[in-house]
C-alpha cells in the first residue's frame, strides 16, 4: 500500500496516552464516572443513613440480585446471549457458602441430640449417618470461597462450550438454560438428604465464630456486599470499554463479519457467559450471608426469569441501570406483595409486557433520551435505534445468527 506517512502524527489525539490507558479517563469516559459516584453515594451513604437495619438488610438482599443483573447486561445486552438460567449460578454460589456455614453450625456440641451428631440436621432427619464426600472440603473457608467462584464458572464453561462451539444461540440457548435451571431445582428438591430439599440449607449462624445474625454484622455485611458490587461494576465497565466490549456489540449484529475478521466468536461468548456466572455466584454467596439461608426457590425457572426482568427494567445496555432496575422492581415487589398480594402478579406481568413493548432499553433508555440531553448537547454515544434486520446467513439451520436489532436482542437463525 502506498501511503503518505505524514498524517499519522497529526492525528495523534486519537492515540490514547498509554499512562492513562487503564486510568480513570479511558475507563470512564463522559458521564460514567459521575454515574458511578452517584450510585456509590446513594448505596454507600444515603441508604445506610436513612434506613433502619431491617430495611437496609432488605436492600442488601436486593443488591445481591444486582450482581446477576449486571452480568446479564454483559451477556444479554452486549453479547445478545439471553440466559434464563442465571439462578443456577446464583444458587450454586449461595449453596457453596451455605455448606460452609452449615458445617460450622453443625458442630458435635450443638447437634448432640441428633442420632448422628456433627452432621447437618437435615441429613440426620433423612437417616444419613455420615457426611457425604462432597461436603467434606467445605469445612475449609478458603476452599468454600474458591468453590463459590470456581464451581459455577466451570459449570457455565461446560454449558457455554457445548452450546457456543456448535453455534447454538438465541432462543435455543434460552430454552436449554431454562431446562438446566429446571433440572437443578428438581435435583436439589429430590435429594433432600444431601441438599436440605425444598427448605434449603437453613439455620446458619456464624462465620468463623462471628455471629452473622446481629445488627452490627448486618451492617458490615451490607458494606462488604456494597464493595463487592462496586468491584463487579468496575470489572463490567472495564470489559465494556475494552475492545472485547466493542466486539460483543459487533458480534450481536454481524457475527459472520467478526468471525471472518479472524476472531473465534465462540470464545468471546464463552468468556462473557462465564463472567456473568461468576458475578451471579458472588451475589448468591452474599445472599446466603445476609439472609441466613439458601433454598431451591432461588435457583429455578421463576427466579431466573425474574432476574432477567430486573435487568430489562433497568436497561439491558446499562450496568448502572441494571442496579437501579433491580432495586426498583424488588422494592415494588415487597411493597405490593405486602399490601396487595393479588395485584403483584398483574403488576409484574404488565411490567414484562410494558418494558418489552414500550421501553426496550428500560430506565437507562428513558434517561438517555429524555434526561441526559438536558445536561449535555454532546451526541449520545450509544443511543440505539432499531435498524433493519439483516438476513441471517448460516451454515446450518440451527445456528447462532442474530439478525441485527441493535438495542434489542438476538434471535435464532432460521
Amino acid at each position, binding site marked *: 500500500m502506498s501511503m503518505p506517512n505524514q498524517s499519522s502524527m497529526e492525528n495523534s489525539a486519537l492515540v490514547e496516552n498509554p499512562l492513562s490507558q487503564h486510568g480513570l479517563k479511558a475507563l470512564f469516559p463522559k458521564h460514567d464516572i459521575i454515574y458511578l459516584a452517584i450510585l456509590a453515594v446513594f448505596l454507600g451513604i444515603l441508604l445506610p443513613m436513612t434506613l433502619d437495619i431491617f430495611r437496609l438488610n432488605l436492600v442488601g438482599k436486593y443488591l445481591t440480585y444486582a450482581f446477576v443483573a449486571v452480568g446479564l447486561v454483559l451477556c444479554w445486552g452486549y453479547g445478545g446471549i439471553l440466559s434464563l438460567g442465571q439462578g443456577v449460578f446464583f444458587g450454586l454460589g449461595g449453596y457453596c457458602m451455605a455448606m460452609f456455614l452449615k458445617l460450622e453450625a453443625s458442630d458435635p456440641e450443638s447437634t448432640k441430640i441428633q442420632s448422628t451428631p456433627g452432621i447437618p440436621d437435615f441429613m440426620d432427619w433423612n437417616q444419613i449417618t455420615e457426611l457425604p464426600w462432597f461436603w467434606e472440603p467445605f469445612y475449609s473457608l478458603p476452599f468454600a470461597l474458591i468453590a463459590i467462584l470456581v464451581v459455577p464458572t466451570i459449570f457455565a464453561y461446560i454449558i457455554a462450550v*457445548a452450546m457456543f462451539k456448535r453455534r447454538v444461540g438465541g432462543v435455543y440457548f434460552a430454552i436449554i438454560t431454562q431446562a438446566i435451571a429446571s433440572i437443578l431445582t428438581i435435583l436439589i428438591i429430590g435429594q433432600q438428604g444431601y441438599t436440605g430439599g425444598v427448605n434449603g440449607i437453613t439455620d446458619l449462624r456464624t462465620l468463623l465464630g462471628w455471629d452473622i445474625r446481629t445488627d452490627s454484622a448486618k451492617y458490615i455485611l451490607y458494606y462488604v456486599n456494597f464493595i463487592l458490587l462496586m468491584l463487579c461494576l468496575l470489572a463490567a465497565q472495564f470489559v465494556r470499554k475494552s475492545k472485547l466490549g466493542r466486539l460483543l456489540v459487533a458480534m450481536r449484529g454481524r457475527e459472520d463479519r467478526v468471525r471472518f475478521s479472524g476472531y473465534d466468536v465462540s470464545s468471546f461468548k464463552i468468556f462473557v457467559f462465564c463472567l456473568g456466572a461468576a458475578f451471579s455466584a458472588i451475589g448468591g454467596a452474599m445472599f446466603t450471608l445476609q439472609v441466613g439461608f439458601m433454598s431451591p426457590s432461588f435457583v429455578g425457572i421463576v427466579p431466573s426469569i425474574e432476574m432477567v426482568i430486573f435487568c430489562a427494567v433497568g436497561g439491558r445496555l446499562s450496568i448502572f441501570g441494571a442496579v437501579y432496575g433491580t432495586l426498583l422492581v424488588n422494592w415494588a415487589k415487597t411493597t405490593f406483595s405486602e399490601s396487595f398480594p393479588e395485584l403483584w402478579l398483574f403488576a409484574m406481568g404488565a411490567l*414484562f409486557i410494558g418494558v418489552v413493548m414500550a421501553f426496550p432499553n428500560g430506565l437507562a433508555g428513558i434517561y438517555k433520551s429524555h434526561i441526559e440531553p438536558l445536561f449535555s448537547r454532546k451526541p449520545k454515544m450509544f443511543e440505539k435505534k432499531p435498524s433493519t434486520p439483516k438476513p441471517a446467513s448460516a451454515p446450518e439451520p440451527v445456528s447462532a445468527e442474530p439478525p441485527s436489532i441493535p438495542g*434489542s*436482542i438476538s434471535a435464532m437463525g432460521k
Partner: protein
Amino acid sequence: MFADYTSAELLSIFAMQGFAGLILFSVFVLMALGLAIIFGQMGVINMAHGEFMILGAYVTYLISNLFSTYLPSLFGIYFFVAMIISFFAAGALGALVEWSFIRFLYQRPLDTLLATWGLSLILQQIYRSVFGAREVGVTLPDWLMGSVPLTETIEVPINGLFVMGLTIAIAIAVYLLMYKSRWGCQVRAVVQNRPMAAAVGINTAKIDRITFALGCGIAGVAGSAFTMIGSTGPTAGQLYIVDTFLVVVFGGAASLLGTIASAFTISQAQSTMEFFLSGSMAKVLTLLTVVIILMIRPQGLFAMKVRK
C-alpha cells in the same frame, strides 16, 4: 436396577408403564403440536402456552359441572362438547393476544419470550382470582372408567386409549391442514418469505393471527385431555412449559413428525424410569439426557440441511 425382576415381570412392567405413559404422551403431543406451529412456523416463543392449556382444562371443568347439574342424562358426552369449546375459547384468547402485542414482536423472538412470560403471570393470577388457588378435578363419565385386560398381568386404561385415539386424530388433522390444504400452503409461504407472500396477495396479518390462534386452540384441547391425568390449578401449566419446549426443540422445531416422535420418546422414557427410580430422579434423568443430546445435536432429531 433390573436384577430384582424376572424377565416376564419386566415385560409386564414395561408394557404397563408404556401404557401409563400414553396419556402423558398425548398431552405432550397436543401441547407440542400447538407450540410447534407457533414456534416452528412463526418463530414466537410462547411461554404462556401452558396457561392456554390450563384455560382448556378449566373450561372442561366448567362444562362437566354444567352437565352434571343441568343435563345429567347427557353427561356421557360432555367431554366432546368441552373439547370443542376449549378449542375455541383458547383460540379466541390466542387471537386477542396476537392482536394486542405479539404482532409487534415478530422480529424479536427473545422479546416475545419475555412478553408472553408476563402474560402467563397475568393469566395465572386471573385463574387464581376466578377459580381459587385450590386445584380442581373433573369426574369422568362411566364409559371412560376402568380398563381393558390385555393379558393376565397387563391392563390398559380406557381413558388412556381414548385420549390416545383423540391425539392421533388431531395430529392427522393438523398434518392435513398444514401440508395438504391451501391455507397451510399460505402459512408456509408467509413463514418462508413474508414480503413475497404479501406481494402475491396473501393477507399475512390474518394468516399470522389464525396460525397463532390455532396453536393456542390445540393447547386448549390438550387442557381437556390434561384433566384426565391431573388436577387443574392456576400454576399447573407452568410445570409443563419447559418439558414441552424441550419436546419441540428435540423434535426439530419445524417438523410435525419429529415433534410426535420426540414426545413419544420423552414421555415413554420418563414413564418407564419412574417405575424404577423416584419420580423426580426419573424426570431429572430424562431432561438431562435430552439436554445432553441437544448439546451434541442442536438441530434436533429431524432437521434438514439447508443451503444458505
